[in-house]
């Protein structure tokens, strides 16, 4: 794991597992209950290393903007599963009192101010937070997570272009997960979105998002550059083959919750998942690496996961026990006055 200490590695793996288990819980909310999670939603399964690796490079006070696929980013940044899950099912205990729901989970106390479900909506906003930091003379930086679909929207190019012109401390993290609008045309989004950022004069690189260490390394260098005032950075993070469970906006857990032993023995996993576990799942790849290098044994990883599952169960319970907001509250908070 290069420069990461054992403690750090364990902590990052724990975050990744927290995301995995929380997202599975979201799917359970949608599929195991009637009328609990009735709309569509987007999970971060498989992409955990990107959120966790990038957030590891951040400091408290930095800003983070994300998309419809936000649950993982919020937890990666330190959000607790309870208020995230409560938000996703519209309960008062959610970070936004259930007002925002799955599309708009945000956590202002963590610098996640406003989450836009409009593809590319977050990109100018993140650049704006970077302008704010620059004008106020702080060392804060701003991160925008978005998918390859956002690179089809004009808003992204306007924001990238201005960020370059004004040398804004903003990190653009484009996660290419092979999906843009539910389409799964492998390779269609192309490995070279990064060229578009380079063409605008932005420092940019392609990162292997299936490997936590690669993300940590690239994000670490990017953040260093940003804090030095050298202008925006664009990371095209390739998150590997798409998780086979994505199914439009209503995911399916093939074979149930992820069994950690599958990571070490893909043959034991359901057929549909095997290739993904071998080549693309950032959690499985990390688990195998840690096992092989003797950093964290299978038994220790399974024990860690047991803790995470218990924590997630408690979080789900908290979310389910949290009431719905009072209906007439819907009229509040249009304006501050």
């Amino acid at each position, binding site marked *: 794991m290069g420069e990461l200490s054992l403690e750090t590695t364990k902590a990052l793996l724990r975050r990744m597992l927290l995301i995995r288990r929380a997202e599975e819980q979201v799917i359970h909310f949608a599929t195991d209950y009637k009328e609990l999670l009735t709309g569509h939603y987007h999970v971060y399964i498989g992409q955990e290393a990107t959120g966790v690796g990038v957030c590891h490079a951040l400091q408290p006070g930095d800003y983070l903007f994300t998309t419809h696929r936000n649950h993982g980013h919020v937890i990666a940044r330190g959000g607790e599963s309870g208020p995230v899950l409560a938000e996703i099912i519209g309960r008062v205990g959610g970070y936004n009192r259930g*007002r925002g729901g799955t599309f708009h989970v945000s956590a202002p106390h963590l610098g996640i101010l406003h989450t836009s479900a409009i593809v590319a909506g977050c990109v*100018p906003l993140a650049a704006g937070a970077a302008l*704010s930091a620059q004008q106020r003379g702080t060392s804060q930086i*701003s991160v925008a997570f978005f998918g390859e679909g956002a690179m089809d929207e004009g808003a992204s190019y306007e924001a990238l272009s201005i960020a370059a012109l004004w040398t804004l401390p903003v990190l653009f993290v484009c996660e290419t997960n092979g999906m843009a609008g539910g389409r799964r045309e492998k390779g269609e989004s192309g490995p070279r979105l990064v060229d578009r950022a380079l063409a605008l004069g932005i420092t940019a690189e392609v990162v292997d998002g299936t490997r936590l260490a690669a993300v940590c390394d690239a994000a670490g260098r990017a953040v260093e550059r940003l804090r030095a005032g050298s202008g925006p950075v664009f990371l095209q993070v390739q998150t590997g083959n798409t998780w086979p469970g994505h199914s439009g906006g209503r995911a399916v857990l093939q074979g149930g919750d992820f069994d950690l032993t599958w990571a070490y023995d893909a043959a034991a996993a359901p057929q549909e998942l095997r290739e993904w576990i071998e080549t693309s799942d950032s959690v499985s790849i990390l688990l195998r690496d840690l096992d092989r290098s003797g950093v964290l044994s299978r038994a220790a990883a399974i024990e860690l996961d047991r803790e995470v599952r218990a924590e997630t169960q408690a979080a789900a319970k908290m979310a389910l026990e949290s009431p719905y907001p009072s209906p007439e509250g819907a009229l509040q908070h249009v*304006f501050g*006055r």
Partner: protein
Amino acid sequence: MPEMSYAEALSQALVEIMEQEPRAVLIGGAFGPLGKRFANRIKQPPIAELGYCGIAVGAAMTGLRPIVSLGTASFIYEALPQVLNEASVARYGSAGQLSVPVVFHVRVGIRGAGAMQHSAAPQPIFWNTPGLQIAVPSSPADAKGLMLTAALRSQDPTIFIDHTRLHRLRGPVPDGPTEVPFGVAQVKREGKDVTVLATSVMVPRALEAAEQLAREDGIAAEVVDLRTLVPLDKAAVLASVAKTGRVLIADETQKSCGVGAELAALICEEAFFHLKAPVRRVAIPDVPIPYSKSEEDYVTPGSHHIMAGVREICR
């Protein structure tokens, strides 16, 4: 009290804002002489309205108080995703945790040879988007006072509606802190026979009409300037209608679903039994704005339309 033009009053407001409020940042191209003095807080963006309006919104979420000058209001249509989908909903979606104190300054309206794409009156679009405040000043004093309030006090996004044909209008502007609160209409002229509700450029047109109606017809028209559409001073509207029992709404927006439509609906719902005559609207017909002077004049709501309307309902 010093006299100055509407444009001078607005520039003065910007200078005072920049002097008093270190978090104020100007984004846009039209800040002329301010440029040198506050160079480090004036950002000249490329022609990328969507990008720089979004950047202003993000900056407003994180401690700045940006004032964005888009120039001609038609150009804000290029930035609507960030204004309507992000700025307006951020406070609501965060259940009150987030403030977005950004000002979008636009020049609206029929300006003379603006044609279809330089004459927009987008007030109804913004009024139909909860979460946006709309200032529609008609005088130099209000232009300055409402801009100060938007930029120095407000915690929410404001669309600041400036009309090209008001720029040269002169009037007194009080010295000192001259903030004009949002949501407080002003009775510009008292009268007992009919209420004329107006905003922005229609206020001077309504006052001109009222003078002439008094002289020629002996009709005492009360002219109420709403000053902000959001928040709306409902009480002032209803009080005047209760007093006169007749109302004409004069607005330079297209008629269907325009500013006049909402005010008429409000009056029908809440002041119907005070009415002695049907509510009248003076507005732009439902067409884009044409270029040629003859056609442009034809669609521009003027004082003659107001007089004709008032004469009809006061018969």
